C-alpha cells in the first residue's frame, strides 16, 4: 500500500491543485496539494491519487553516478 510510483508532470492546474501526469505512457489526473512546489517536467511520486513528493533529480543523479563508478571500476578490474 505504501508503494508510490514516479510519474512525469505533463500539465498543471494551479487553481484546482491538480496535475496530469504520465506513467509509462498512461495519463492520469492527480492532486498536487501536498507539494510545496511543482513544475511541468518534474517527476513526482504518485500514491492513491496524490503526488507525495518531487523526485530530486540532483540526488538521483548522485546515486546513479556512484553506481556508474562501481561499474567502471569493475570494467577495469
Amino acid at each position, binding site marked *: *500500500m*505504501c*508503494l*508510490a*510510483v*514516479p510519474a*512525469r508532470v505533463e500539465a498543471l492546474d494551479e487553481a484546482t491543485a491538480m496535475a496530469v501526469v504520465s*506513467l*509509462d505512457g498512461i495519463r492520469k489526473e492527480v*492532486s498536487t*496539494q*501536498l*507539494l*510545496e512546489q511543482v513544475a511541468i517536467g518534474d*517527476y513526482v*511520486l504518485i*500514491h*492513491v*491519487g*496524490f503526488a*507525495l*513528493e518531487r*523526485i*530530486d*533529480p540532483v*540526488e*538521483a543523479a*548522485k*546515486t*546513479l553516478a556512484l*553506481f556508474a563508478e*562501481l*561499474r567502471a571500476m*569493475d570494467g577495469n578490474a
Partner: protein
Amino acid sequence: MKYIDEFRDGDTARLLAGLIHKEVSPDRNYRLMEFCGGHTHAIFRFGIVDLMPENVRFVHGPGCPVCVLPAGRIEAAIRLAESSDIILCTYADLMRVPAGKKDSLHKARARGADIRMIYSATDALAIAQANPERQVVFFAIGFETTTPPTAAVIRIAAAMALTNFTVFCNHVLTPPAMAHILASGEASIDGILGPSHVSTIIGSQAYADCCAQYRMPLVIAGFEPVDVIQSTLLLIRQINEGIHRVENQYTRAVSASGNRKAKALMDEIFELRPRFEWRGLGELPDSALAIRHTYAAFDAEKRFHMAPVTTTDIKGCICPAVLRGVSNPDECKLFGTVCTPEEPKGACMVSSEGACAAYYSYGRFRAEVTS
C-alpha cells in the same frame, strides 16, 4: 521508465551484492528487518534473498497496513455497512481481509451491503457528492504515506461543508511500532531497512530517537531492487563498524525533515489516539491517529457511535508472530495448504505486501527468477 529502470539494473545489483559478499564477516550473522511490506515484496520478487550470503537474513516487519489492522476494526466496518443505509468506500487491499467468523468486506458486499472499492481518497469524496441523500463513509487505513491524502479529503469536505461524508480513521504511525519491536527485543535484529515512502512524508530524522535509544543501525531504502541491495550494504558496513545511525539511501525522495506541507496538514486534521490495537503488536500507546475534535463532524466513529468490536483471528494463523519478526510464514501449519492467496485465512496472505503472500507467490520460483 525513468527512475525505475536504472534502479533495476542487473549488473549494478550483482556488483553491489558482490561487495556484500566481500564485506560480510563470516563469523557472525546479520539479521536485518525490512520494516515495510513493500520491501518484503521487492526482496522476493527480484530474488534479492538469493543474491545474499548465507549469513545475511531478512526478517520481515509489520509494515503492511492491512496486516496490522485487527479483525475487529473490519468487523466494525461491516456491522456499520450492514446496519444502516450507508455507502462504505475502501481501498481494494482491504476487501478480502478476514474479519471475524470467516467474514470479509467482500462477502458483506455479496450479501448486499453497499461497499465500493476506490483507487484514490478523492474518489470517496466524489461518491459523497454524487449521492447527497446517502451517508458515505471512507474506511481509511495506512501508515504515514496514506494519511496525508485522507487529511486532504477531510479538509476539502469541511471546506465544501459536506454533511454526508465521514471517515472511519485507522491510520497508524511507524516510529512507535518500530520502537515497540526494538523494545521487546523478541525479533533479535542487527539493523533495519527503513521505509521508503513513509519516510518521504515523515523524514529521516523521525527515526533518530528510536535508533539512538536502541543503538540500532537504520538505512532508509528505496523500493527498487538496487536500492534495497545498496541499503543492505550500507547496513552491513554500519554493523561491521559497530556504529548505529540513521542513514538515507533514498535521497532522491526522502529529506531529513520530510514533506512539511503534508505533515502540517496531518497535524491540522489528526491527533494522537491514546491507545490503538495492532494485530501482532497488541495495544500500543500513541501509535495511531484520530480525527481532531474540530473536524468531529467528519468522524464516522462519532457520527455513527461505532462501538469497539473484538474478534479472534482464525486458529492456527501465526500472523501475529510473523508481524513481530519472530516467525517465518512457512512455519505456519496452514501455509500453502489451507491458506493460499485464493483462500486467505489471515491478513498476511491477502495483501501483496504481506509476508505470507510474498513467500507463496515468489518463494517457490526464486531459483528461476535469479537464473
